């Protein structure tokens, strides 16, 4: 308690002060401690456990040198050599297995305690803990402070809860990797930064977390950096995110320049000074949204996320599905006071979200890599979230964020179990087939029954089949779009010359079509992976099997959450018919944080009659069922051939399978010109010519020139020096006399 009084300078009048909520500073400190411990252990990675015949006794103390030959490429079967057999368990793997997940479990328990404390008090203002003054420069006063309110609480629970599960899963998945402590160090560090992002009471603190999660994402995508493709994927993610971060920074600068505050409480109070619907607030919001498109993989900056699947599968589940990529949605919900002032910016967010949702869904239809399907599905679902927060239904967006983190983490972890099993099969026969390609799978239902059931639950959830979580959240977003299209501040605004209501109806239609595609591609994935004949090969099939309990248990928990997640925010229409429980819990919970912003955008909205709502809901279910049925009827898993025998796609299918050649187009239009300009202009002309030639060597030449002139005076002839002397004396005397 002594530490408590030293660390926190808090407003004592807040109802939460004095409760367990005073310990929020411990939330990020726990994973940070895990990072330090695991990081230190990972420095000692050259020693392997006893019993290993190849244990080097004395090895240079350098991680890279020691790990390089033994690293196992579990993800990328195309690049594996004999290192399949090199199971090099790290010397400290046992310690890491305890420390890594334990700090997260503790953090989750603490988060639960804080949540209990919050439900017990009437809380109108956020609870803010200020630790120290960070940037007191002129008019800029930025404190390192954490803010606890209903919105950050939702994120804290999701982040710590899903992280804890995925950390436990990672124990099973990564245990035999030589870089095991390093992996957990990065993962702990990621959670630390994610909690900084979520808890920050102002944009700069949030930005530290925002950059930090980007760094950890980069480190974990390139975790198996010996393979150049993985390292390149990490770099791509980092560079693409920099473009978005530039937008976030500019938005911060504009905010400070115009209203002089950067903390959320101050902005909520002063945002109206920017002017409702003014160009300024629209510009701020659009720059901020640029940051979101980077972090949350929306058009045009989504291209890094599919490549990010190069990282270990639990990383894809945690960072690239459940938590980090949703930071953009959280940012917009957090900045609801700003976005609600600008219907144009809000509509832009919704349109980009809708276009991304359908665009990524079409690509997902033709992917063969099981993780790529899920990656495009993530992009598509993030698009839904942006539609939600874009139309001012901030609660719906957050709701979908929460449920998506459950079912998508489940899907990724399930695919991890599948890949794990496939690897064991190929390991047994020394085969170098692609363990992630669905054409090589098939019929896994028999070997992975638990994973099969759980992944079907998640598939039904993401497709929008009641009563699973995804149905409620996706339906709520579409329902909100429809309700606002009928007449609201958004519908009254004009977007690029189009009436807002037409735009909203279009978004609704796109959302429905994307939902149909979601159902199709998810069912396709399930059919090709788990149903039909087995295509792994007879010997391999004998080695397929369920993963250890550390991996299945978290997936089971996520499965329960996927089933129950919808109860967070049941629509009134349903509770009116079937008494399932309290309706609109999340709506009520988030009301103090985003309520006024929601009201500002939906002002003038007509109450949608219950019959219409039921119709919308029925339509959504119908579309989901149609999608699943279409996939089951049309896709013949039996006709699939393994990847090595497969014919390349043709026509439009080829275009989709190649992701519309977006990467190629960006290479052609952005990367290559940048490279060429850098090489010819920036390097040869600016750097070598101007900087090195003109400025550096030029100034040297100038000095030498003057020196040469001076040296001509040094004739070495004393007579001439005497002449100079005399002239100097005469001149001085003359000057003094004449003065």
């Amino acid at each position, binding site marked *: 308690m002594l530490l408590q009084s030293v660390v926190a300078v808090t407003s004592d009048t807040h109802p939460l002060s004095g409760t367990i909520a005073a310990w929020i500073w411990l939330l990020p400190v726990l994973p940070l401690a895990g990072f330090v411990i695991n990081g230190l252990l990972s420095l000692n990675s050259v020693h392997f456990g006893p019993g290993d015949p190849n244990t080097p006794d004395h090895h240079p103390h350098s991680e890279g040198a020691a790990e390089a030959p033994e690293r196992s490429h579990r993800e990328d079967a195309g690049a594996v050599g004999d290192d399949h057999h090199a199971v090099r368990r790290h010397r400290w793997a046992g310690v890491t297995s305890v420390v890594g997940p334990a700090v997260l479990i503790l953090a989750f328990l603490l988060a639960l305690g804080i949540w209990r404390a919050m439900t017990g008090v009437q809380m109108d203002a956020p609870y803010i803990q200020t630790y120290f003054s960070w940037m007191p420069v002129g008019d800029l006063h930025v404190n390192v402070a954490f803010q606890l309110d209903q919105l950050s609480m939702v994120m804290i629970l999701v982040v710590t809860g899903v992280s804890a599960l995925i950390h436990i899963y990672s124990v099973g998945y990564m245990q035999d990797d030589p870089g095991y402590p390093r992996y957990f160090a990065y993962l702990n560090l990621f959670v630390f930064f994610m909690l900084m992002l979520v808890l920050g009471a102002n944009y700069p603190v949030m930005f530290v977390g925002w950059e930090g999660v980007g760094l950890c994402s980069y480190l974990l995508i390139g975790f198996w950096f010996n393979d150049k493709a993985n390292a390149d994927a990490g770099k791509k993610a980092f560079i693409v995110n920099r473009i978005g971060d530039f937008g976030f920074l500019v938005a911060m600068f504009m905010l400070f320049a115009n209203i002089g505050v950067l903390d959320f409480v101050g902005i909520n109070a002063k945002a109206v000074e920017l002017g409702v619907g003014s160009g300024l607030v629209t510009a701020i919001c659009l720059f901020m949204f640029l940051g979101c498109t980077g972090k949350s993989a929306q058009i045009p900056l989504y291209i890094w996320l599919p490549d990010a699947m190069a990282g270990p599968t639990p990383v894809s589940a945690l960072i690239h599905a459940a938590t980090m990529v949703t930071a953009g949605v959280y940012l917009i919900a957090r900045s609801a006071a700003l976005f609600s002032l600008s219907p144009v910016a809000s509509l832009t967010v919704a349109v980009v979200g809708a276009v991304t949702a359908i665009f990524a869904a079409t690509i997902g239809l033709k992917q063969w890599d099981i993780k790529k399907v899920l990656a495009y599905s993530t992009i598509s679902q993030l698009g839904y979230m942006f539609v939600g927060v874009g139309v001012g239904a901030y609660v719906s967006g957050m709701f979908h964020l929460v449920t998506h983190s459950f079912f998508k983490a489940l899907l990724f972890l399930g695919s991890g179990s599948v890949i794990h099993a496939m690897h064991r099969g190929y390991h047994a026969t020394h085969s170098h087939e692609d363990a992630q390609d669905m054409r090589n799978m098939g019929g896994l239902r028999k070997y992975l029954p638990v994973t099969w059931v759980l992944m079907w639950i998640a598939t039904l959830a993401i497709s929008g089949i009641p009563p699973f979580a995804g149905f409620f959240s996706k339906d709520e977003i579409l329902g909100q779009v429809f309700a606002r299209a009928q007449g609201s501040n958004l519908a009254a605004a004009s977007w690029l010359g189009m009436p807002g209501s037409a735009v909203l109806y279009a978004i609704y239609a796109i959302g429905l079509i994307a939902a149909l595609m979601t159902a199709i591609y998810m069912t396709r994935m399930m059919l090709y992976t788990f149903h039909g004949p087995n295509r792994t090969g007879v010997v391999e099939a004998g080695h397929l099997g369920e993963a250890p309990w550390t991996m299945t248990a978290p997936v089971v928990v996520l499965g329960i959450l996927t089933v129950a997640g919808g109860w967070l925010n049941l629509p009134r229409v349903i509770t009116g018919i079937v008494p399932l429980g309290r309706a609109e819990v999340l709506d009520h919970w988030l009301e103090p944080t985003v309520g006024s912003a929601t009201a500002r955008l939906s002002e003038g909205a007509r109450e949608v009659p219950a019959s219409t709502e039921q119709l919308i809901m029925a339509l959504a279910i119908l579309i989901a069922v149609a999608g699943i049925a279409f996939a089951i009827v049309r896709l013949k898993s039996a006709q699939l051939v393994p990847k090595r025998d497969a014919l390349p796609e043709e026509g439009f299918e080829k275009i989709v399978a190649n992701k519309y050649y977006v990467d190629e187009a960006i290479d052609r239009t952005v990367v290559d010109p940048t490279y060429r300009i850098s090489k010819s202009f920036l390097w040869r002309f600016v750097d070598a010519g101007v900087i090195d030639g003109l400025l550096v060597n030029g100034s040297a030449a100038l000095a030498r020139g003057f020196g040469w002139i001076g*040296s001509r005076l*040094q*004739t*070495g*002839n*004393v*007579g001439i020096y*005497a002449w100079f002397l*005399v002239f100097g004396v005469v001149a001085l005397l003359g000057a003094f006399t004449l003065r």
Partner: protein
Amino acid sequence: MLAESLALTAALFIIGVMGVLIHRNVIIIFMCVELMLTAVNLTFVAFSRQYGPAGQVFVIFVMTVSAAEAAVGLAIIIAIYRHRQTVNLKDINLLRG
């Protein structure tokens, strides 16, 4: 009386300066430097008639120093001559930049 003496010393001094500037032979230049010192000494004496004996004290002082300077200067000239077989300034330009 003072004015005439000062005119004389000034003339002597300028003759010395011009000698230093124009001549090439180090020995002659050296003699011209001595001439300049003598001119200064004369000035001191001329002023001492008016302002008391302090100027004459300075003359003794200057003569002492110039004697030492003559010794050192001649030694340098001899050293240069031994080294380069010349006392012509035109040929002594080791310090040219």
